[in-house]
């Protein structure tokens, strides 16, 4: 049963991908959705077993690479951590499959789309169930590949193709760090299996490495290198630029890959490697700072964006930042909890926005929407639930997980922790504002679309609403129901067992009451505030933007990261390529090498030719010259 969880999506993908033409669109949609749903049911059973019976297993499927001391297996590791990921991945994936039947109903390439979705699910499952770093890397690049395929799904769109390549290449930058981390692990431990690495970690905490004359602590270095990989995949600041562009893909893809599952792989990696990270204070602080900066940066950008999907994309980026700084302050279980709840409400928001886009016939700009809440009652109310959950409105799922992160940051007790808590609260406030801005601009106010008549907008079909409805249940109750299990305060944490390692047990203190109340109050207050700003008195928000024009443009252009990278990396690479080719290869190497030599030989032979004139008297003259020279030489001697 365990293996079929992974195998079913792969089979679904093969059937739909290769035989989609023969079995028809509808059949491939049904088969893929069905097989992934079965996989989701099996995953829930495994999750249940893990909770109730402390089930734990490491299944070896086959050998993959064995070279010298390197042994890598295809494996399936089931423990609390991977079982949580199994449930998240397969259930969201199953819902997205079903939703896509409705969303992609006008697309001519349905089997291909479903095949990619299932293939992605397979790769993601390989990633989370791996028992070694190299299979993890396989899944890691595999999900990247599927993301590439799906972002560029509408292959005729130039922007989609560009975004797809950007996503892959930026991720490769992260993978570069990740791969070096794996090499370093193999170098230090002689193995890449988690359990063996984690067992030996305490032996090498004092070991230093020299690189370019600089001394590095080996554990710090491993952690930082792995974290570079995590930054790429989870779109953390500096390596985040691909995620907003990835919204070129169909919306179900954004929900599954760029919100609920793939982008959380980085968080999963850090949590999985908690036995290593716990020994590196430096890496944890770096993670805290990066996570916090991302959370803040993405929230500020989301405030001014006008594309409905880009707002949610930046919001995802920001929430991933929260998860990272949770791991940075050592609260791995809280990070996993936020990952879990986030999967539900963010997928809900994305699918909801897909429903809106569907209603507006592919319009994504929220300035051209508005006033449709009565026309889209279900989408509207479900989006409200998602927004409330995201902002951390009391007693919805985001409330439990996000507030817990801020609390643990506070309880960490060091500067980074306090700083993170402060930024966390402020970002929560920003989150709330931009989320409500989205809701108000999309659903309320006047109807702003000139191309489509209000009457033509329509609620989505039932096949799209059911997944939304199921996700909204998760968004409403997942926090409340699983709070004790994931981050229970009482005594030893039984659920996670040894899948998460704490060097020092987490603090069980409670922060002061004012601190606990601060975030919920801010979040609640922001609802009327954004109502006033974006609906009641629109001119005010425009005035603010006008007064702070530079700041507004700075935010609108996403802090100019894309432009900066273009100047720093993309253009120089192209110039360097041209230089190395046209100048170095052609002018220098060929010019002095084969071409130069052959022209030289030609010149010489032209000269040599002139000697052979064929005139006897010239030859005789030269002979005479030589003879007299020889004679002179002999006489003088």
């Amino acid at each position, binding site marked *: 049963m365990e293996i079929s969880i992974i195998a079913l999506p792969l089979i679904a993908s093969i059937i739909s991908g290769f035989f989609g033409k023969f079995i028809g669109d509808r059949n491939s949609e049904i088969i893929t959705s069905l097989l992934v749903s079965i996989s989701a049911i099996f995953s829930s059973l495994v999750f249940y077993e893990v909770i109730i019976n402390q089930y734990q297993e490491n299944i070896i499927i*086959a*050998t*993959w*690479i*064995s*070279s*010298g*001391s*390197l042994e890598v297996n*295809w494996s399936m590791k089931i423990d609390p951590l991977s079982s949580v990921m199994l449930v998240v991945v397969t259930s969201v994936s199953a819902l997205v499959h079903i939703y896509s039947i409705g969303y992609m109903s006008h697309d001519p390439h349905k089997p291909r789309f479903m095949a990619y979705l299932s293939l992605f699910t397979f790769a993601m499952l390989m990633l989370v169930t791996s028992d070694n770093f*190299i299979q993890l*890397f*396989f899944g890691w*690049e*595999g999900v990247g*590949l599927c993301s*590439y395929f799906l972002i*560029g799904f509408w*292959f*005729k769109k*130039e922007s989609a*193709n560009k975004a*797809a*390549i950007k996503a*892959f*290449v930026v991720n*490769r*930058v992260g*993978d*570069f760090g990740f*791969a*070096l981390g*794996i*090499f*370093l692990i*193999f*170098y230090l431990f002689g193995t890449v299996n988690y359990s063996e690495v984690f067992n030996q970690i305490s032996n090498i905490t004092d070991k230093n*490495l020299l*690189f*370019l004359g600089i001394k590095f602590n080996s554990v710090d270095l491993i952690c930082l290198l792995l974290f570079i990989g995590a930054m790429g995949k989870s779109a953390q600041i500096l390596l985040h630029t691909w995620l907003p562009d990835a919204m070129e893909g169909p919306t179900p893809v954004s929900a599954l890959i760029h919100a609920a599952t793939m982008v959380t792989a980085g968080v999963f990696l850090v949590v999985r490697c908690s036995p290593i990270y716990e020994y590196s204070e430096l890496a944890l602080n770096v993670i805290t700072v990066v996570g916090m900066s991302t959370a803040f940066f993405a929230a500020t950008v989301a405030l001014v964006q006008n594309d409905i999907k880009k707002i949610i994309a930046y919001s995802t980026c920001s929430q991933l930042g929260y998860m990272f700084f949770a791991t940075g302050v050592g609260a791995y279980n809280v990070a996993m909890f936020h990952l879990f709840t986030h999967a539900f409400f963010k997928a809900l928001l994305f699918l909801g926005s897909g429903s809106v886009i569907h209603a507006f016939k592919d319009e994504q700009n929220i300035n051209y929407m508005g006033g449709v809440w009565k026309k889209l009652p279900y989408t509207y109310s479900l989006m409200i639930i998602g927004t409330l959950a995201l902002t951390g409105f009391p007693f919805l799922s985001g409330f439990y997980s996000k507030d817990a992160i801020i609390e643990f940051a506070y309880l960490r007790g060091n500067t980074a922790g306090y700083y993170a808590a402060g930024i966390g609260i402020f970002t929560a406030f920003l989150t709330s504002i931009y989320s409500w801005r989205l809701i108000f601009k999309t659903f309320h106010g006047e109807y702003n679309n000139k191309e489509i008549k209000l009457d033509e907008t329509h609620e989505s079909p039932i096949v799209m609403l059911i997944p939304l409805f199921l996700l909204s249940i998760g968004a409403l109750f997942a926090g409340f129901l699983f709070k004790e299990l994931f981050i229970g305060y009482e005594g030893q944490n039984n659920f996670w067992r040894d899948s998460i390692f704490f060097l020092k047990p987490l603090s069980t203190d409670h922060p002061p009451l004012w601190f606990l109340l601060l975030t919920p109050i801010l979040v609640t207050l922001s609802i009327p505030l954004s109502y006033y700003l974006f609906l009641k008195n629109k001119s005010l928000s425009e005035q603010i933007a006008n007064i702070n024009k530079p700041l507004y443009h700075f935010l609108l252009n996403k802090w100019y990261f894309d432009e900066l990278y273009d100047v720093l990396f993309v253009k120089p*690479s*192209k110039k*360097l*390529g*041209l230089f*190395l*080719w046209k100048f*170095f*290869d*052609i002018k220098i*190497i*060929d010019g002095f*090498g*084969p071409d130069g030599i*052959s022209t030289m030989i030609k010149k010489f032979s032209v000269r040599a030719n002139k000697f052979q004139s064929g005139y006897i008297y010239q030859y005789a003259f030269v002979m005479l010259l030589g003879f007299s020279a020889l004679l002179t030489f002999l006489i003088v001697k």
Partner: protein
Amino acid sequence: MNFPILSSLILLPSIGALFLFFTRGNKKNNFTTKYVALFTSAVNFFLSIYLWILFDPSTSNFQFVEERIWIEDFINYKVGVDGISILFILLTTFITPLCIISVNNSIKERLSEFLIAVLIMESFMIGVFCSLDLVIFYLFFEAGLIPMFLIIGIWGGARRVYSAFKFFLYTLLGSVLMLVAIITIYWLNGTTDVVELYNSGIDIKYQNLLWLAFFSSFAVKTPMWPVHTWLPDAHVEAPTAGSVLLAAILLKMAGYGFIRFSLGLFPTASEIFTPLIYTLSVIAIIFTSFIALMQEDMKKLIAYSSVAHMGYVTLGIFTIQQQGIEGSIIQMISHGLVSAALFLCVGVVYDRMHSRLINTYGGIVSIIPKYSILFMLFTLAALGLPGTSGFVGEFLILMGAFKDNFLVAVIASIGVIIGAAYMLWLYKRVVFGKLVNTNLRQMFDLNRSELFILSCLAVPTLFFGFYPDPLINTIEVSISDLINQYNFKLASQI
């Protein structure tokens, strides 16, 4: 085992070529000509599979050894295989029949002469990979140039003569020095038998110069930076089948030579020159990757990417780590499959549109979907995606390199990023996007033979990506023994 299986492998294609030589001239015969060639090379392929089955991977000794006196007290014809060479023989016998199938799409004139050249080349290549005598090795190594020279010079494109001469001069220049080195070795040790030389070792005083002489030949053939500029020109002008042979097999001779001779015969010198190899490899990886990024000609792009990939190979070999050398051999096999497939992919669209320029194409995915899928697979293998054979090789090489030298591994890993960029960008510009050039609408998808060839290459690319064990098993013992010998000789200063 009395049946001379290796000699049969070497001779069989030549016999086929001889047969073609006597029956050529009749134009109507083209059909039978092709089938004779195909039959010969297919039989050879199955023979080599049989060889692989009989091969005992648990020992590093040479197997199926045949020895005959050629010139008394001087040259013996001696052949044999070990784990290092057998995979290259398989690669050769596997690629050749596919090349022969591919010719009916690209070669329109002098078909039987072309096939003769291909078959003779197969003979020579197999000879290179199993000769155990330096002189025999040299003969095969150099003779392989001739059919390739003819293939480029006769069946090539517009600038074929320039390219053919560039190719010939470059490679010959290096080889002359190798010949001198071989003669020197004969003077020093009184034999050119590789096994005896392995055992006796070569005087340290001469190792450096001898190593450099061999290096000059291998570096050109690899090709290493900065003697790589013949390769893009040769590829651009060569017909598809010629490019395939060149990329898949010819380039591997040098990698094989480095392992067999540079490491095996001159360990002390190899140790001294490792920094040189590292530097050139890393430069090759980075420089040519950037150059590949800017190419406008598909074949040139893939040619430059080959230089980068071979940079990984040379890097891996001189790590003297189990992972590094194994990775190098797997990378060579993988590159043999993948680059062959990529050149064939270019050939497919070239046969239809007669253009190799990237900007001729764009938006062909819905016109020729089967082609697009297979092309995508090989693109991914070329950029080293896990699950393809390209990943296993590259990853093992970098792992081995990391053990030996951090800096080199770090810089070489950057090549992986650029590699993804140029391959995906190539694919995007050719296959995706809007259909601008309306002539492309007339393109038809892969015909049966093209589909067959590309599938034949796709299957091992994927299979060895998920299960490289058959390859690693074959080479493991030979390589660990090579490394032990190397370290032993280094320690005892032989």
